[in-house]
Every structure is written in structure tokens, then in C-alpha cells.
């Protein structure tokens, strides 16, 4: 078993992934122990046990009960393995903590009572489980537990004034497309780094699935979160850590705007995510670098997603409005080069394309899509002025069954799309 300074050092290492450097050093200063560059304690109390107690106390005072609880499992296991007594903090607050944070802590406490060796490996596994391998942030699983553990308790104590900020890296699809999959991971790591460096004291970061991060901001309203999101956007824009300029967009979910009934333990996560998803979907429409703080532009129930490939800006706008009026969610691209990545990103139910687009024409796009296992089944509708026997021949050769000549009759186009989506749905069933 390692010595207590090493144990403390390791815990600091874990916390490093959650706290900003200044914040961590401020918290550590509270403990009254001096730390070196590598966050290993260099001097402290004469008795290592007292050092550990002071360390845990300091964390408790600075950051509340969550953080001591977070590392409790490992500390307790390590001490038990070395035959040392449990620190005072854990002894005294066992009950309180378990009430407050029953998810995480109860697990740790339960573990303590079981086989030590098994506990050791399980804790490591737990750590793996709750940490995201790319950024070292805590993952969505832990985010869920965090919400479920913290929110109902606060809600019981009175009005919750916390906000969850979702931050999305906008261009990951393009990055991966252009520079390979590592570029996307690299950008996520870089973004994680910027987030940590700009972390506020009341905030905790989590890495959600895909290019999404979340930040739980306690005691903070929507406006403050909005300001903070703006600030982060600016930092990202100024940074030169990325292989090319990237954008982040943000969706804000204020817990205060949620129905208190939904803040119960088993509902809060689902509730937050429902609102979040809605707002993230709005981000897609608003474009890169946008912030969505409420769903006023609420999403109508969409009867399907359509990818629109049209170069002429006016016609693209008309088509988009037409599709939206028909109840479809429309994503547009203006040239052939973007078409396939966009299809990959949005996974539309139907693709509507002009034949004449630059970089790749409608037929070439179709050919590319046919080469992809996932995308080849998406129905493809051509709309073009250049419809003539030769073009129709080619369209049929590529399995395109719907080819409209511009000017297109709105009802005809909308009806065809609706029928295509319905067919696909009945096929799935």
C-alpha cells in the first residue's frame, strides 16, 4: 500500500480532471498543506493521518460534501487495505453523506463492507466507468447520478436556482471528414482544456455523448449562464489550439423553469435531457456558434427530416420554407461537396436535390450515397429545370424514382416526401 502523501497526490490527480487549476490550488490552500508542482504534498502535519484529515476537511469546507464523497471509496479502501482507521470525516459524516448523496457514496460505503481486493478493482473500474477516456471528464452516466443525487435534495430544501449549460462542438463532422477521426478527438480534448481553464467555481463539467459537454452551474440563473456561454464562445474563438477555426454552440436549461414535480429523483435526468434535446435541435437550425436559451421558437412536431441540396440561395430559402410549412424539418446545404457529410450528420428521411450544384452534381451525390451502406437507402428526389430524357434516363439508372421539373408544384413535392417517409416507416415495421 502506498503512503498517505501518495494517496493524497492521486486524489488530487483525479480532481484535476474536474477542477480548473486555480480553483484546485485555491481549494488545496484551504487544507493548510503545501503542495508541489505535481500536486504531491511536500509538507504538512507531522502525522500523515492528521494530514489526510486536514486534506479532507479542507476539501469539505471549500467544495461541499460532494468531493470528499467522490474520493471516499478509494481512500477508504486504501486505508482499510493498509489496516489504517477510517478518517474522521468519513466516520462522522457517513450518515449525513449517505443521505445527501446516496448514489455515489452509498456505493462506496457498501463496498467498504465487502472484500477489499474486489473493492479495489471495482473502484478502479468505477472510475473508468464514470470517466470519459478522451477528455478525462466525468461522463454522462455520472452526470445522471450527479443530477439524481443533488437536485432532489436541493429541491426539497427550497427553490432550485441551478442551471445546466450544454456546450456543443459544432464542426466535429467536418473536422473528422477533413482531417480524420483523431482530429475530432483532438478538438474535443482542446475544448475540454479551454473549458477547464475557464471553469467557474460553481460549475462542474461533464462530457456527454458525441461532441457535447454539459456544465452544471449551481446557484446561477439563466442570464448568468448565457453570459458564461458567450464568454466560453469567445475564448474558443480566440484560442489557437485547434487545427482550424471551430465554433461551439450552447443550449441552456434552467432547473427553475422546470416543473418542481419533475425534479424528483427518477424524473430529473430525463426531464433535463428532454428540454436539452429540444434546444440542441434548435441549435442545428440556428447554425454554428449560436446559443439557445429557451424554446420559444419551439419545434413543431416534425413529420420527418429532409436534407435540401440547392445552390441558389433564394430557391433554397423558398424550398426550406415550403418544407417547413409541410411540417418537415429541413437542413440545407449549398454545394455538392457538403451534401454527403450533411446526410451523414442529419440522417434525413428524404434528400431533395437540385441536379445542377457545384463541386458535385446531383448524380454524383447520389452515386456517393449509394456507396455508403448507411445512406444508400435514403430516398432521393431530384428537382431541376434541366429535366430532359437524357437526365431522366440517368436518374433511373441510379435508382432515383422521383424527378420533378422546376417550377415544382408544392403539393406534389410535399406529398411525395410524405409518402416516401410513410413507406419507409411501414417497411421498418
Amino acid at each position, binding site marked *: 500500500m502506498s503512503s498517505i502523501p501518495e494517496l493524497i497526490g492521486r486524489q488530487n490527480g483525479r480532481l484535476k480532471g474536474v477542477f480548473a487549476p486555480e480553483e484546485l490550488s485555491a481549494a488545496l490552500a484551504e487544507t493548510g498543506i503545501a503542495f508541489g508542482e505535481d500536486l504531491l504534498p511536500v509538507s504538512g502535519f507531522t502525522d500523515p493521518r492528521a494530514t489526510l484529515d486536514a486534506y479532507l476537511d479542507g476539501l469539505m469546507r471549500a467544495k461541499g460534501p460532494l468531493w470528499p464523497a467522490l474520493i471516499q471509496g478509494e481512500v477508504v479502501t486504501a486505508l482499510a487495505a493498509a489496516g489504517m482507521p477510517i478518517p474522521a470525516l468519513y466516520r462522522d459524516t457517513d450518515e449525513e453523506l449517505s443521505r445527501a448523496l446516496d448514489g455515489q457514496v452509498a456505493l462506496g460505503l457498501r463496498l467498504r463492507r465487502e472484500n477489499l481486493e474486489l473493492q479495489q478493482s471495482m473502484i478502479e473500474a468505477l472510475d473508468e466507468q464514470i470517466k470519459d477516456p478522451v477528455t478525462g471528464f466525468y461522463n454522462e452516466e455520472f452526470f445522471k447520478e450527479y443530477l439524481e443525487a443533488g437536485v432532489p435534495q436541493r429541491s426539497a430544501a427550497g427553490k432550485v436556482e441551478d442551471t445546466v449549460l450544454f456546450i456543443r462542438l459544432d464542426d466535429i463532422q467536418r473536422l473528422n471528414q477533413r482531417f480524420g477521426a483523431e482530429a475530432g478527438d483532438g478538438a474535443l480534448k482542446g475544448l475540454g482544456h479551454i473549458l477547464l481553464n475557464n471553469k467557474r467555481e460553481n460549475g462542474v463539467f461533464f462530457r456527454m455523448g458525441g461532441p457535447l459537454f454539459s456544465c452544471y452551474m449551481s446557484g446561477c440563473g439563466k442570464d448568468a449562464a448565457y453570459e458564461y456561454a458567450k464568454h466560453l464562445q469567445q475564448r474558443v474563438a480566440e484560442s489557437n489550439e485547434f487545427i482550424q477555426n471551430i465554433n461551439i454552440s450552447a443550449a441552456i436549461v434552467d432547473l427553475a423553469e422546470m416543473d418542481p414535480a419533475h425534479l424528483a429523483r427518477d424524473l430529473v435526468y430525463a426531464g433535463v435531457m428532454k428540454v436539452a434535446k429540444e434546444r440542441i435541435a434548435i441549435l442545428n437550425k440556428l447554425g454554428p456558434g449560436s446559443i439557445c436559451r429557451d424554446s420559444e421558437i419551439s419545434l413543431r412536431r416534425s413529420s420527418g427530416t429532409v436534407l435540401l441540396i440547392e445552390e*441558389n440561395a*433564394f*430557391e433554397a*430559402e*423558398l*424550398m426550406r*420554407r*415550403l418544407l417547413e*410549412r409541410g411540417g418537415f424539418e429541413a437542413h440545407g446545404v449549398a454545394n*455538392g*461537396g457538403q451534401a454527403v457529410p450533411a446526410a451523414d450528420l442529419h440522417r434525413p428521411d428524404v434528400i431533395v436535390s437540385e441536379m*445542377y450544384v*457545384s*463541386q*458535385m*452534381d446531383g*448524380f*454524383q451525390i447520389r452515386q456517393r450515397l449509394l456507396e455508403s451502406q448507411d445512406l444508400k437507402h435514403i430516398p432521393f428526389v431530384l428537382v431541376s*429545370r*434541366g429535366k*430532359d*430524357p*437524357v437526365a431522366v*434516363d*440517368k436518374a433511373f*439508372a441510379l435508382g432515383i424514382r422521383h424527378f420533378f421539373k*422546376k*417550377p*415544382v*408544384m*408544392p403539393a406534389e413535392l410535399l406529398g411525395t416526401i410524405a409518402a416516401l417517409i410513410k413507406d419507409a416507416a411501414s417497411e421498418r415495421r
Partner: protein
Amino acid sequence: MAIPILILLFFIAANIAALAALLYNKRRSRTDYRRSLAIRRALSDAVFLGKTVDLGPLIKRHPRISLRLWRDLGGALALSPEEAEPVREAFFQAGLQKRLLGALRSPFPGSRYTAARSLKPLVSQDTLPNLCAALVGEKYEYIKLALTLDVLSSGQDEAFDAVAAALSSSSISFFRSVQGMLSLAPAAFVPWAERRSGMEDPGTKLVILSGARSYPEPWLKDYVAAHLAHDDPRVQSCAIATAEELYPEILADLAFAPDADIVSRRASVRSFVKISFPLNLHSLAVFFEDPLVKDVAVASLAEYISRYPEEAERVLEFLHCLDDPVERSAFSQALAGRLPFLLISSADPERCRPVAEDCIELGLNAGLIALLNTRWDPSIQKLLLDWVRPFTVSNPHFRSDCARFLNEELRTELEIAPSEVPKSSRKIPLTKLDRAALTGLLAAVLILPAALISAELSTATIGKIGILVREYVKLFTFGFGFYAAALNCLYLVLILLAGRNLRGQGRYWSLLDKEYLFAPGVLPSISILAPAYNEEKTVVQSVHSLLTLEYPDYQVIVINDGSKDDTIGVLVREFDLERIDPPLHGTIPTAPIRGVYRSRYNRRLLVIDKENGGKADALNTGINLSDREYICSIDSDSLIEPDALLRMAAQVITTDAEIIAVGGNILPVNGCTVERGMLQQISLSGNRIARFQTIEYLRSFIAGRLGWAQLNGLLIISGAFGLFRRSRVMEIGGYMTGRGEFQRDTVGEDMELVVRLVRRMRDTGRKYGIRYAATANCWTEVPEDIRSLYKQRDRWHRGLVEIITWHRRMIGNPRYGIAGLISLPYFVIFELIGPFYEFAGYPLMVLGFVTGALHPQVFIIMFSAVLLFGLLISMISLVLSERDIVYFKPRELRILIMHSVMENFGFRQLMGWVRVFAFVGMLVKNKGWQKLERKGFTVRAA
């Protein structure tokens, strides 16, 4: 001292003003963009939400843009009358239609055309009578065409009546266009036609017969049948065309009517073969005896065989039963294309012998020689050789073709000596006499000023050689200053003309919406001719990109000019080519064709495989095959922007003059990103020499060609992208090659063609137009090192010298109009002789200043006149070229401006010297064609 400083300041100020204009342009295009954004939003609000509050004021403030955008909206969405009504109402309230209807009566054709095109979205019960009246009274056919489409969109009876009246007195090309438009006639056509079926005027008949193509009705069939022998040839040909397309059976009956006239007989023979299966060969044989329909019968039979390949065997059998040699040779001719298939398809190749023999008799040597050259099964090879052996003695024409094109191995076997004529027959371009004349001209030009000066000074300064030289330098530099000022003044005039031309083009282009351009019958049909030589690596991508061009009616003809690599193989594999035996429409002599293919993957694509003969020869082969109105010559390695063909053809349809050639805008592709044969991003090359050329191209296309085009004196259309009227090119025998009637090659075949076209048009006293489409962009690679640049320019200049020498009769001849009086003399003075002055002028100017022979005041004037004036021209060209389309980012624009300053110190002088050396070199010896080394496009890593 004041005057020179003033001049200097004036030029500096002018340059700064040009710079300001450049910046203002950017700003203006931003405001324009914002304005159109607001109108777009208001329009779509009106259509989708029925909200027209914002629209009214916008229409009042910007009526033109609003109407244009409303027209574009109508081109994208077919709105129901209820949806369109509020917007239409808003336009009517603004009183726009009143103003436009007034403009329809304007004395200026430009205003009438604008009104005719603008009124399209405002056609209604109220405006229709005025439009119909305008259509009937209009003189110019391009305006009539716009009005025809306007009135037809209403689908009212009076519209058809007006079109009929307009057709009564019009040219054949207008009739063709209307015929195309009527193929989309609204449903109201049928009841109207029924009511008018008794009318006797030819216009009404023409409209009914054309519209009948899209509405098969029993009574219309009878109507067509009744007009097959009409007295009016236009009505008759229209009836025949409709019958051939829709009711071939009624024509087929006519095939055996002895008293039918020639037009209907030819059509009826075609129809007869078209509807018969199995074909009665005995009946067909009758047609072979009539020389008037023989060719049609042969072509129809060949088509029949390629439609039903299984019938080839039966035709061959039938051929063996014939005694009449004329009939036999006709059948052989139709079977010639199937010969390889017949040879291997059965165990008895001997039965094909008569076909092969007839081919030689008929002079169809090329196919047979290509067949011999193919690696066959040795037994068939031997058989073929045995068949042709007697002819190598009896038929001198066949023998000489064998000598030129047969494999060496086979040739020796047939004991034929190789021909002395080299394959690529570049003959001596200039005769000794030509060269002597040129030398004389040069000597006179160079010695004359020196002699004059010497004569003037001789009395005063005999013996004082120092003073003489000094005075000589001084006077020469003065002369040079005047020369440079004159050249730049000419440029300035051309630029003013170019600005006018550009404004006109921009206005017309905004009037032509895509819906109009894509309406049948509006745009001329085009064949794109893309010669390819040893391009197996790039040809697939180039062809793919040519097949994505935005144009309603075009075909792509790739001509494999006897490539040594597998160019034809990659084409066959990629585009799924099948061999066809198409009729050739032209008779320009070319190197033999090995085969013609059509793509099953895209019917727009044809490929010709032929023996090597050079670019001009390849183009001529393509011209022979093409049956379209215009041909478009391109370099197969240059990139054409998708809408470039539309923009070129827009030049043709906005005037009544016969446009015989349209030039495209060539820009350097170096530095741009190209993927999959398509331009992804425009950017400036990092290479200095390429940047200088970018400036040079912009300047020469804006200041040079656009200005000349405005004067109708344009003589240079680049072979990399040019549109030519096929019938006129055929008339003058195509591009100049060693094989044609001229028996000589030139390195400047593209310019030579234009000069000869102009010469022919003027000689025969016909009106013509040569245009330049400033926004039809073609991106081509330019040399990036001095050596290749030198070679390229050397070639260009030699081409110019050759052309001017051959066509020297035109110079200064008023009979050849602007081309003879201004364009050609300009070439002689500023392009042939000028470089010699520049060659000496720049060094002497500096020398004069350094040694003090030239007074500083004079130096400043000269500096302004030569350098600052030149810079001004570059700047204005930049301003004009960036007017409508933004090519370059602000940073790149700054670099370009910097380079247009820098090019005055070295690059321009260098380009002048190349010309001097090229000219002198030509007088000394003749060189062959040197291929420009190409680098290939920058391919972005995926």
C-alpha cells in the same frame, strides 16, 4: 517643371481613383445583397403567409429587383393562382405593368426586350392584348421570341392567334424556336386548334401542326396527313416533321408513291424503315436505285441493323442474292459498321468478302484499315489481307491510305512502301517569299526612324558621333513615349467600350432567367468538342465534369486523337461505350476515323477514336460528326464553370445578328482547388509568374477582347473555350490543317479560324457578330516557370505572324470593316512591330536618364505615360472584372494590385522580348508545335 509634375500627379490620382472604385464596388455589392435579401424575405412571406404589408413599399422602392426576384420565385415554385394573387396584386398596385407596357412601344430595341422579358410574371387578362399587339408588330425576332413565351404562358386563344400572325412573316430559325416552345403548349391548345382548323393562313397552320406533336388526336392526325403535300414549303416540312415523329405510318405509305416530292420521299423512306420489322429488303432495294433517296435509305438501313443486330445476318444473306452492283454496294455500305461483328460471329467469314471489297470501292478505307490494324485471330487477319491484296494494286487511293495508316508489319506483308507524308503534316507555314516580305517590312520599320533622324541631324553634326548618338537616344525615347501613350490611349478607349459591353451583358443576363433559358426552342443546341491526346490520367474526370454542365441541349464529343496511351480504353470502361455508325454531317477532310462510340451511361457523350492528326484535325473530325447549331471547342484539361455555356449562348439569343463566334473568359486555374474535375475554391496562385499572368489575362480579356467585341472587331477567340456556328465553320472548311483545302498547318489555328470566318462573311456580304462572354469562365493552367512561358508565348506569336502574313490582303482594306481597318492594323503596329520599339525603348529610356541625355522633366512625363498609364489600365480592368462577380478575397486583391505595379519592371518587357525573338526566329527557321508542359491540378488531400 510644373507640367510634368501635374501629369505625374494626374496619373497617380487616376490610379487612386481606380482603387477607390474597387473598394466602392465591394461595398455596393454588399448593399445590393442586403436589399435583395429583404425583398426575398418579403416575397416568401407573401407567398407562404399571405403577408404583403412589407412587400408594397419594397416594390415601390426597387421595382426592377423585386420583379426579377418574383420571376425567380415563379421559376422555382409553381404557385396556385390564389397563392400568387396577393403578390401580383402588389405589383399591379405599384403600377409597374403600365410602365413596362409603355416600354414595349419604345423605339429602342433594348428597352422593348427588357419590357418583354420583365412582363412574363405579370401576364394577365389585362396585359395580354398589349403583349399580343407588340408580338405582331415587333421587328426583331429575339424580342418576338421573348413575347411568344410570355403570351403562350397565358394559354388564351388570342395568344395562339398572335403567335400564328407572328409566324406568317418570319425566318426559319424563329419558326424552329416557336416549334420547340409549342412542344409544351398548354392544354388550351387543342380546343383552339379545333376552332381554327379551317383557317387557311400559313401561320395558323404552322402553330397547329407544331402543337400537334404533343397532343395526339385522331382529327389532328388527319390534319397532319392532309398537309403533307401542302404548297407552302414551311407548312409542308412542319407537317412532315410532326408526322415523322408521331405518325410514321402515314408517311411510310407515301414511300412508294412515285409522284411525291423529294422532301416527303426522304422522310417517308426513313419512316418506312422505322416502322417495319422485319424489314422487307426487296422493297428497300428499290430505293437504292434512286440517287435522291439512296443516302437516306442506306443510313436508315444502317440504323435498322444497329437497332436489331440479329438482322445483320439476314441482310448479308440477301446481299449475296443480289446481282445489281449498285444495290449490292449500298447494302455493303450499310453493313460496313457491322463488319467486325459479322467476321467473328460465324464460322464462315468468307461470306463477308463482298462487303469488305465494296468498302474499298466506296472509299470507306478508314474503317477497314482500322480493322486490319486491330490484332485479330491470325486466320481472319490472313483472310482479310488476301481480300484486300488485289486492291493495293488496282486502287491507288486505297494504296496510299494503307501506306499512311497501316501497321508497319502488315504494310510490308502487302509490299507497300511507307508514305513520305508525315503523320502530323506540319508543312512549311511561311514560304520563302513570305519571309522575305516580312524581313523587308521589319527592316523598313527599323531603319526608317534612324534614317529620318540621321538625315535631319547630318548637316549640323557631321563628325560628332557623340552628339549624334545622344540626340538619337533622345529622339528615339520621345518616339517611344508617344508610342506607349498611343497604345495606352487605345487601351483606354477599348476599356470604355468594354465597360459598356459589360454593362449590357450584365443587364441582359439578369433578364434571362433559367426558366426562359431552359424553355425548349430558346437556346441553340451545342456540341462540345474536346480533343484528347495521351490523357488517360485526366480524361475521365474532365469528361465527368463536362457532363455536369448546366445546359438544356448539348452533347459532348471527345476526340481521341490517336493517343499513344490507353485514353480510349479508359473511356470505354468508365462510360460504357458502344460502337455506333452515325452519319457524318460534314465533309472536311481529316485523318481516318477508327470508330465512333456512344455512351450507354450518358447519352450526351460521344467518343471518336481516330488516327493522330493534331488538335485542329481532331476538332474538324468533331465538326463532321456534330449535327448541332453551334460547336464549342475546349481543351480537355481546362475546367468550365457549370453555367458558362449558358452565359455564352446568352450572347446568341439577345440579338438578331447572326453570331458566328463567341469567346469565353479564360482565367488561370493555378492555385485554385480542384476536386473530381470540378472547381472547389478560387484562389490566387502562390507562384509569381502565375500571378503576373493572372493580371495579364484579366487585362487582356477586359481591355482587349471585350472592347474589340463591342466594335465587332474581335479576332482572337481562345481555342481553350470558344463557341462557333457550325454551318459557317463548315462553309470555310473547318480549322486549317495539312489535310484540308489549305494544305498547311498553323500553330494559331483558333485565331486563324476567326479571321477566315470574318473574311468569308465579308466576302459574301453577310452581316455577322462576334461576341465575347465576359462571365463565361474557363479555368486553365498557365505555365509557372519562365521556360514554359517562353515556349508558350513564342508559339502564340508565331501563330500571329503566320496569320497576319496569310491574310495580309485584309489589312487596311475597307471591305473587311473594323477587322480590316482597325483590328488587323492594330496587330501589325502594336503586336508585330511594337515589340521591337519596346525592346530598345525601355533600356534606352533608363540609359537616357542616367547619362543625362534625357531631361528629368521629359523622363517624368515618359514615366507617367508608360508606367503609370499602364498601371491605370490594369487597375480599371480589375475594377471591371470584379464588378459583378467577386473572384478574389481582399488580401488576394491587394497582392494582385501589387503585382500589377511590379509587372512593369521586368515582366512586361520580357513578354515583349519573347515576341521579338519569336519574330526573328520565324524569319530564320520554321519550328514545330511545342506542347506546353502541364503540372496537373492541385488536389486537396481527402
